[in-house]
């Protein structure tokens, strides 16, 4: 019952929007190439399903590969910045600087460097994704409980032991927040990479059908893109659920114990 209550309001809200979309477009006589009716988008989605599926695999692959490399680079950067003062002084300003450059403007350079292969798209994805991961992981490392660190040192823990048992654990919530942001960026990065030059992928698909003024197909492609973003985002949610189990709400039965 409670679950039902939780979904009923968003569901009704979305239905109202979709219905008014469906009804208002013919009412105001909006031409199809500006905004097609929602049902037309669904039809396009169904008709193009095989092509869309093929293209989405390419985009998903680029996004996943770029995201994974970003995670590795991000973690390595954050840990070295945290561990060595000199690395912090050198690397951190450069990382910040790299984000002041509009990445979209950098993307053509990636094409020049990596050509039309998958790596130019992966490179754009990395440019988008590694920053949130570095920053969030670094924040997590900097907010490690210093008193707890002292306790573990007093208990005889070595630097490595403390790093593994304390830092790598307490950084997880921050890292996962960064990962979730990066996950949604990764799809955007991949499609931008594809716009600049590719023969496969949802980005190039959307660009192509837009050129032909098939706006229903454009929207279908966008819908699939956002679904991919959601898919990658949910990896973050799943990781959170399994790694941060301890955050689950206090169970009724444990209230009794609390009273002792």
């Amino acid at each position, binding site marked *: 019952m409670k679950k039902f209550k939780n979904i009923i309001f968003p569901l009704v809200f979305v239905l109202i929007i979709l219905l008014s979309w469906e009804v208002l477009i013919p009412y105001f006589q909006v031409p199809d190439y500006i905004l097609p009716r929602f049902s037309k988008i669904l039809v396009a989605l169904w008709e193009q399903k095989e092509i869309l599926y093929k293209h989405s695999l390419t985009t998903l692959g680029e996004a996943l590969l770029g995201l994974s490399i970003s995670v590795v680079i991000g973690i390595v950067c954050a840990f070295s910045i945290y561990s060595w003062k000199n690395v912090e002084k050198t690397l951190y300003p450069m990382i910040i600087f790299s984000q002041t450059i509009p990445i979209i403007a950098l993307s053509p350079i990636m094409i020049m460097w990596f050509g039309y292969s998958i790596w130019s798209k992966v490179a754009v994805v990395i440019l988008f994704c590694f920053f949130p991961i570095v920053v969030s992981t670094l924040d997590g490392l900097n907010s490690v*409980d210093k*008193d*707890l660190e*002292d*306790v*573990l*040192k*007093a*208990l*005889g*823990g*070595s630097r490595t*032991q403390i790093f593994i*048992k*304390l830092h790598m*654990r*307490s950084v*997880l919530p921050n890292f996962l927040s960064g990962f979730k942001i990066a996950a949604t960026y990764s799809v955007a990065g991949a499609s931008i990479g594809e716009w600049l030059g590719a023969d496969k992928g949802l980005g190039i698909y959307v660009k192509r059908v837009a050129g032909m003024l098939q706006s229903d197909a454009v929207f279908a492609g966008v819908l699939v893109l956002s679904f991919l973003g959601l898919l990658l985002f949910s990896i973050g949610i799943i990781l959170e659920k399994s790694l*941060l189990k*301890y*955050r689950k709400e*206090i*169970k009724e039965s*444990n209230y009794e*114990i*609390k*009273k*002792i």
Partner: protein
Amino acid sequence: MKALQINNLSFKYRELDKLILEDLSFSIDRNEFVTIIAPSGTGKSTLFRLILGLLEPSKGSINIENENNKNVIGYMPQKDCLMPWRNILDNTSVGLELNGYSKRKAREVAQGYFESFNLQGTEKIYPHELSGGMRQRASFLRAIVSNPSLLLLDEPFSSLDALTRRKMQEWLLDLCEKEKNTVFMITHDIEEALLLSDRILICTQLPYKNLKSINVNIKRPRTYETTLTSEFIELKRSILNILDSLEENKGGKIE
């Protein structure tokens, strides 16, 4: 040998000009419960960090009785400092894990203490699900589980409400009377100090230089009733007098 021997210890932070400790010497015997009372913000915690080896003394030496070279100090900070991602059993056994015990063996050893710490049933529970008093007990268990030759307690009950604090003091009193531990505790609760300690050190001069040592010759076993006896109140008054005169000397302000 003394459990803790401090000789001519001086310390100042590199960033600050003034000395925190100056030529400080004192010692603690084995199985003695010693409390230090000093105004807050004067460097008691610095003294603890020095003893823990987290800071290097500028001058002087700190010697801790050392039987097996490792895990000689048990430390209980002001906050409970439990790891939120570990359940209570794994939190309390972490000290053993750090000293080379297998996870299973460490859990086994820690488990043995749960009953006397009144924590049975909390093994699989995460810290945020427990009350403040229980978390504090768990933190204490973590400090004591590797059988340290010196226990450092940094205002262990200051974050608890008055009622829970009283319960915890009684419980600690009971525990220390059963198992003789060498304890060095920071507090600014005079009653707590008198109730628990064999000896009280009072800082009479800043930076820390000479500590006034007062023996608490109230016979054991003590209970909370002890706080109502005339000799207890007499001692409390004399400590208050010392602290008052200290404040007067400095024009009512200790800096």
